[in-house]
């Protein structure tokens, strides 16, 4: 009986050690947030204070197997409650405007207006983008979320639930600043091992943005 207990304790110890090592190996320097409900409430409260965001961004797409990385830069605007404008400037020009259920996509060749409602995938991507910025991503039914923290940042690891999103993303990792609960970066990890990281810089919160920026 004592041997059995020892064995169970041993297995339990090995398992818990492995789990702890895995978490640490995944996100070095971060520990799990224990009171998830409190974090969720605070995240939603702080995010609700943000009515607009203007920011620069740098996007880095890494094709792991090909050892290729492409970096693009641009500007990002968000106006509560559901308006987003993303403008890639270098090394290519590309504009994406989301305004409610409508979306405009424009490059140097063509301009496309899309009704997001008519395409489930667009609808999901639109929702993710808005939820990330508005701080409501933790309520999303599209993901299961684990939250970690260090002294300056929260790390939200979001794993897609639906098959359609799983095809594109293995996880989406959000880094959120503790000082103002603003999103610092979004890392989209694909099942193939490739990843895209969008880092925001020169953020201005609650500065006025003309409605015309989101005209479709």
């Amino acid at each position, binding site marked *: 009986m004592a041997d059995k207990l020892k064995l169970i304790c041993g297995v339990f110890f090995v398992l818990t050690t492995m789990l702890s090592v895995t978490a640490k190996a995944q996100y070095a320097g971060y520990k799990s947030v224990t009171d998830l409900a409190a974090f969720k409430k605070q995240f939603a409260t702080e995010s609700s204070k943000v009515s607009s965001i203007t920011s620069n961004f740098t*996007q880095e797409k890494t094709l792991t197997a090909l050892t290729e990385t*492409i*970096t693009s830069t641009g500007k990002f605007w968000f106006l509560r409650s559901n308006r987003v404008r993303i403008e890639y400037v270098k090394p290519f020009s590309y504009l994406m405007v989301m305004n409610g259920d409508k979306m405009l996509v424009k490059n140097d*060749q063509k301009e496309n207006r899309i009704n997001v409602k008519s395409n489930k995938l667009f609808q999901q991507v639109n929702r993710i983008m808005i939820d990330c910025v508005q701080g409501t991503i933790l309520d999303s039914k599209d993901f299961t979320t684990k939250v970690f923290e260090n002294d300056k940042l929260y790390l939200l690891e979001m794993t897609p639930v639906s098959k359609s999103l799983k095809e594109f993303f293995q996880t989406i990792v959000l880094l959120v600043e503790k000082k103002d609960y603003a999103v610092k970066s979004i890392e989209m990890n694909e099942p193939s091992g490739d990843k*895209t990281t969008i880092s925001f810089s020169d953020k201005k919160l609650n500065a006025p943005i003309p409605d015309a920026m989101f005209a479709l």
Partner: protein
Amino acid sequence: MRCLLFSACCLLLMRCASDYKGLQATTPDAACAAKIAPTQFNTGWYNANVDVYGRHISGLLLIKNMPDSSFRVVFTNEAGVTFFDFGFLANGEFKVHNAIHQLNKKAVIQTLRKDFELILGLPFRKGTVQRWTKDDEVFYGVVQKKETAYFITSKDCASLRRLEWGAARKRKVTVLLPGSPYPSPEVLELKHHTFNMQIKLARFTKE
């Protein structure tokens, strides 16, 4: 009624006329073929615009020359999500490393495979090159199972004008090359003649 019938017959005959009628077989010019055949392709990033049956898709296309002489062709959207990742191996094999389910259909994959084989100039790396002339152009072709891959030059062999996939009578795919030539073409404009699809690629320098 007679007039209508006559017009219909004329249209039918025009449709039946071969795109390759009038090609005169001539002795291959090995020096010209060696000089101008698009058999090398340097790694590069392209802005890609695809129009298929009235739908438009844009994104970024990477064509990478791998150390083992194979090629990888990866198409992502501007936000970074990968749509497909194809491998063209040195031994002629083709591998789908990744493709979203909307594209992962045999007919779509085969179409894209042949399109990129032509763009990469893979058919011209093996097989016997034959030569034909027509008007002021010279056609160099490698005959495959049911189709022939052509690269078409000016009569003086000064420039590569376009690439084509052609069946016995019908032109199927054309790749126009406005701008700088192989191995680092600046612009490639691929057009399907048997259905409504075009791919435009414009090379850009990454940051």
